[in-house]
């Protein structure tokens, strides 16, 4: 049966995802959700340039993603969002995912928490923490991990460090 993974990464589709995560998770389909990118055809074609044609790649709005996520898929699927705040909008569609992997997010005005790794940094606001708490309480496995071969910090361990 096909599996779905979610990654939170403000660079959306980029090197770490394509070179490392997709092969490791045997991904066949990539659904990158970003309203702004989805509406910019130049940016869309540039982002797709770096993705090998063997992947079925979609760069879509949140609404379009909801439709895609209800459709059956043959291989494993990777859903990428830029920020945690997108996740509540697709909460129903991602209830059965294998895990939510928190990758990279640069500093924003309200980000007062930070998880730093060798290959990136993930900044979170209080609101981000609340959102992720909500998802973990529904039984979804959430952890910070930049690359498949770097260390993993699970959500509970991060919460203890606060």
């Amino acid at each position, binding site marked *: 049966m096909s599996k779905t993974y979610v990654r939170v990464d403000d660079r959306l589709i980029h090197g770490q995802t394509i070179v490392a995560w997709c092969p490791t998770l045997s991904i066949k389909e990539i659904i990158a959700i970003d309203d702004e990118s989805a509406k910019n055809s130049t940016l869309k074609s540039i982002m797709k*340039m770096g993705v090998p044609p063997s992947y079925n790649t979609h760069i879509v709005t949140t609404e379009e993603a909801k439709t895609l996520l209800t459709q059956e898929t043959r291989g494993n699927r990777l859903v990428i969002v830029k920020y945690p705040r997108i996740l509540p909008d697709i909460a129903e569609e991602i209830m059965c995912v294998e895990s939510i992997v928190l990758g990279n997010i640069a500093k924003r005005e309200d980000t007062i928490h930070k998880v730093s790794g060798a290959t990136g*940094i993930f900044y979170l606001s209080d609101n981000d923490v609340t959102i992720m708490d909500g998802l973990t309480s529904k039984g979804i496995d959430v952890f910070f991990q930049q690359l498949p071969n770097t260390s993993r910090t699970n959500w509970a361990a991060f919460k203890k460090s606060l």
Partner: protein
Amino acid sequence: MKRILVMGHGGYAEGIRKNIEMIAGKSEHMYYMDLTKEDDLATFERKVNCLLEDFPGDEILFACDLLGASPFRVAAMLCADHPDKYYAVTGLNTMAFLELSMNMDNNLSIAQLANRSIDTAKAALARFPE
């Protein structure tokens, strides 16, 4: 005037700069910019735009480390906004950078320069013994 902007992740550009300057010395038309893990894309984009503001009307060749990655994405968006003036290439090696650094053939258009850098990079790949 034609200018080269080398861009990459985490010290790539700085590494290329040291590499090229050790072999060929400083070059006035070469610029180097790295995306750090602290930067978001908007910050990086601002830095690039800030540099380019000094060269209105010039032709730019972006030499990026990795196809599809963030520095390339920034370069490609700029190329889309500056047709025939800006080009981007990825994955060049020392031989190609040396050529760009030392031998800016003014008879070449920026598009031809982009093609030549790719050809040179490919020609520099080798195995020994063959």
